[in-house]
């Protein structure tokens, strides 16, 4: 049988070429950009990227990234980012961009958010080059799959006063528009000194890919004392959430990146006042597109999820105790050792928990099956490292620039 000569004109067959190329892994596509100018333009087109993303999502749903840092100073690569899929049996280590990996012994990276294949990293560290030993900050947008990254330009400085060097600024990241591949980063920082009433000034600024510069959002966060627990912040569904407290009352601060509007939401009454020894982990996380946190009470862990009340114009939020986590002790290999859970993520119906190991220093990652109310899998994490965050992730060809 004679195979008919395939038309070499892409114009005739572009849909067909898309059908084939959209089923390829990213490594192949990065390489095939060199096949011809036409193929390069096609692979970089937003239409193709969207089609390809759908295929990848179907093959690999419920991907997440884990970030941890080695506590030992002798490691050359102290920062660890790993990829994990729901059905995977082991974590896959990813290479961070070198400038991010470069460490001055105390660099801490916060993942501000991840969307459409892009991850926003927020490394903070003190540098010996800086005589005041105040911290240096970088904001990096990274695509782990294409291995490209960019460093955003330095944010705007405070006018007429100094910025605080004690607290990490809040950082949020969102992807706005599928077609225009527009992303937005928000940064909220406060002044070093407060006024006579104990209030600090806050500077809210946003960076968008299309504007390619920082822009102040005026009158956004009024002067006050919000005492943000910035390490607890997460971006979920286009909203930056952070635990905050004013005059010993705890609440959740939120900034909607789309509207650029602030909302403060109360915590459940039990946990809104200090001290609250039952309030566990001081960490917000994402659970099914909402903000959530975990409490520990009489031997049981309870997951609280923030749900938007329907039928109201202004967003009001209610906390509901969603699930009680049982049987953590029965994790194979854990036995009766003390479990210290830092809930970090809810994806694909499972809750991801970091459990502190009792004997040798380190942690295990446990995925907890919410439906079956029992632990599903356990992953041993690198000894001597402390893992801090888990975020949603999907692979894509989206450009960082």
């Amino acid at each position: 049988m004679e195979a008919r000569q395939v038309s070499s004109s892409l114009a005739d067959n572009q849909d067909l070429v898309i059908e084939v190329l959209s089923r390829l892994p990213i490594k192949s596509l990065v390489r095939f950009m060199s096949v011809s100018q036409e193929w390069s333009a096609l692979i970089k087109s937003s239409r193709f990227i969207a089609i390809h993303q759908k295929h990848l999502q179907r093959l690999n749903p419920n991907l997440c990234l884990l970030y941890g840092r080695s506590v030992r100073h002798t490691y050359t690569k102290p920062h660890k980012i790993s990829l994990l899929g729901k059905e995977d049996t082991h974590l896959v280590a990813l290479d961070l961009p070198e400038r991010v990996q470069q460490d001055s012994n105390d660099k801490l990276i916060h993942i501000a958010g991840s969307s459409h294949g892009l991850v926003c990293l927020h490394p903070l560290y003190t540098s010996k080059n800086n005589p005041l030993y105040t911290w240096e900050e970088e904001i990096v947008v990274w695509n782990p799959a294409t291995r490209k990254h960019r460093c955003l330009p330095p944010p705007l400085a405070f006018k007429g006063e100094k910025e605080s060097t004690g607290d990490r600024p809040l950082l949020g990241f969102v992807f706005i528009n599928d077609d225009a591949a527009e992303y937005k980063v928000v940064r909220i920082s406060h002044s070093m000194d407060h006024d006579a009433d104990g209030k600090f000034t806050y500077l809210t600024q946003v960076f968008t890919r299309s504007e390619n510069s920082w822009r102040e959002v005026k009158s956004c966060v009024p002067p006050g004392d919000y005492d943000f627990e910035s390490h607890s912040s997460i971006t979920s569904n286009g909203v930056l959430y952070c635990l905050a407290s004013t005059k010993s009352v705890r609440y959740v601060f939120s900034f909607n990146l789309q509207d650029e509007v602030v909302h403060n939401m109360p915590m459940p009454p039990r946990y809104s006042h200090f001290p609250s020894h039952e309030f566990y982990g001081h960490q917000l996380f994402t659970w099914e597109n909402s903000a959530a946190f975990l409490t520990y009470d009489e031997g049981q862990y309870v997951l609280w999820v923030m749900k938007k009340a329907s039928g109201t114009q202004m967003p009001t939020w209610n906390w509901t105790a969603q699930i009680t986590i049982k049987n953590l002790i029965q994790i194979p290999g854990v036995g009766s050792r003390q479990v210290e859970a830092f809930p970090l993520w809810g994806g694909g119906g499972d809750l991801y928990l970091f459990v502190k190991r009792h004997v040798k220093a380190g942690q295990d990652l446990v995925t907890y099956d919410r439906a079956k109310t029992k632990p599903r899998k356990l992953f041993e994490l690198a000894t001597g490292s402390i893992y801090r965050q888990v975020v949603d992730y999907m692979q894509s060809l989206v450009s960082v620039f």
Partner: protein
Amino acid sequence: MSTPAENEASIKQESGPSGTVQDKPKKIVVRTGDGEVFELKEEVAMEMETIKTFFMEDNISYETVMPLTNVDSWELVKVIEYCSKYVELKNKENFHKELKAFQDEFVKSMSPKTLLSLSNVANYLEIKYFLDFICQAIADHIKSKDVEYVRELFGVENDFTEEEYEMAKTEAPWAHENLDKDLY
């Protein structure tokens, strides 16, 4: 399944919803680009949107021989083979397992150029699941091949300069590593 041309006359089926029930299953007749005539079972023919639309839209009688000028006879043989099997397995319990076994056998001896031709046909005849399958087979085949191989297969001309190509390789060396060595 090819029928000599003179048997065309012996097809006596009624077409359309008002047709009377016959003992013989309904057949649809097509003529490929290289002049061969094929008789297809109705249920298999209806898996191909292009054929389905042709007969259903204007209520064309099944006595009409549909021309498939863009399809060669050997290609149609393969398409019929796949669709018949798909229809047969569709409602079975082990559908996925048995289909996978059939798929592996189906592509086993096919050259990449053959797969490309079949993808063209699948696209033209609008058979979604067959198109998915063939395109995935092509993707799996070229996944770890180098740029030169892919150009040759798709008949694409290289319009990059040597410098541009080298620069691309330097920017993302990881994407050009660990490729298939046995290419041809």
